[in-house]
């Protein structure tokens, strides 16, 4: 296998991480909504924590994207 095709395959594999982050972000918002509907009075005060969780989950997906880009444009 030559370098160019290996590069493209590697970048594609690295992009799997973005999908995993999608699961994480969905989990964050899903769990928040689930508990917010049970206790709507407490929901507003937890919005800051919601976005911290979102930021942490999202960052890992963005790192996967950055790795894919580094592989794709290597050399």
């Amino acid at each position, binding site marked *: 296998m030559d370098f160019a095709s290996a590069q493209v395959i590697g970048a594609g594999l690295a992009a799997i991480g973005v999908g995993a982050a999608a699961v994480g972000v969905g989990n964050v918002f899903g769990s928040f909504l689930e508990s917010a509907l049970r206790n709507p009075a407490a929901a507003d005060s937890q919005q*800051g924590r919601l*976005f*911290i969780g*979102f*930021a942490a989950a*999202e*960052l890992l997906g*963005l*790192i996967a*994207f*950055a790795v894919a*880009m580094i592989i794709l*444009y290597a050399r």
Partner: protein
Amino acid sequence: MAAEGKIDPMHQFTVEPLVPLHIGPYDISFTTSSLWLLVALVVIYGFMALGMKRQLVPGRWQVAVEGVTGFIDDMVKVNIGPKGKAYVPYIFSLFIFILVSNLLGLLPLAVIGIHPFTTTSHFSITGVLAVLSFSIVLIVGFWRHGLHFFSLFVPHGTPKVMIPLIASIEFISFMVRPFSLGLRLFVAMIAGHILMEVFGSFIVSGFNGGAVGWGVGALSFAFIIGVAALELLVCAIQAYVFALLTTLYLNDAINLH
């Protein structure tokens, strides 16, 4: 751009010099990046100036400005408490600068031949913002607590045996903060713009390519409308997350654990 042949999504991020200027070995040309930073400055200044007339009964514009300042004020009050009042101007500048630069980059001005440049899609800009926040946290922390600031790395009630392990983990997570802060904003912006560029090229190439191509083009067109709406949301969320995380890090430095 990519009417035929290869799609080149990275081209939109190139910094091109508008007024070349060299001093010795240093290149300090006035670039597209500097131009759009200035545009952001003008927009922010205009937005604020029109809303700071201090009318007793606020007009529409003043309500908009008060909404943004009140939002940041509340966020700092909730997360830091009364001691955070001194840092509201910094957090506010950070928030509105990131928000305006993000939104400026999304403007569909290419229709009339002006290509907006997203200043926040470069690590040199977001990295500087992140390092600025991080240094403020360090300065405030050491200034308020002196060497006691290091107790940040040892949470309350840690068993003695665990201290070396916990402290090293906390130290790593502390030192990674500026990178994660800058990287998040920059990659989120770059990813959104690449996505829009790729699907925009699909529309053009699709409509050039027969019946099946028309289908692909129409689907991409519907998709890109959704993506554009999502990008508007991401612009606001990224600005909010950057400001929120800076507030939380400041809270660590002011109140310790």
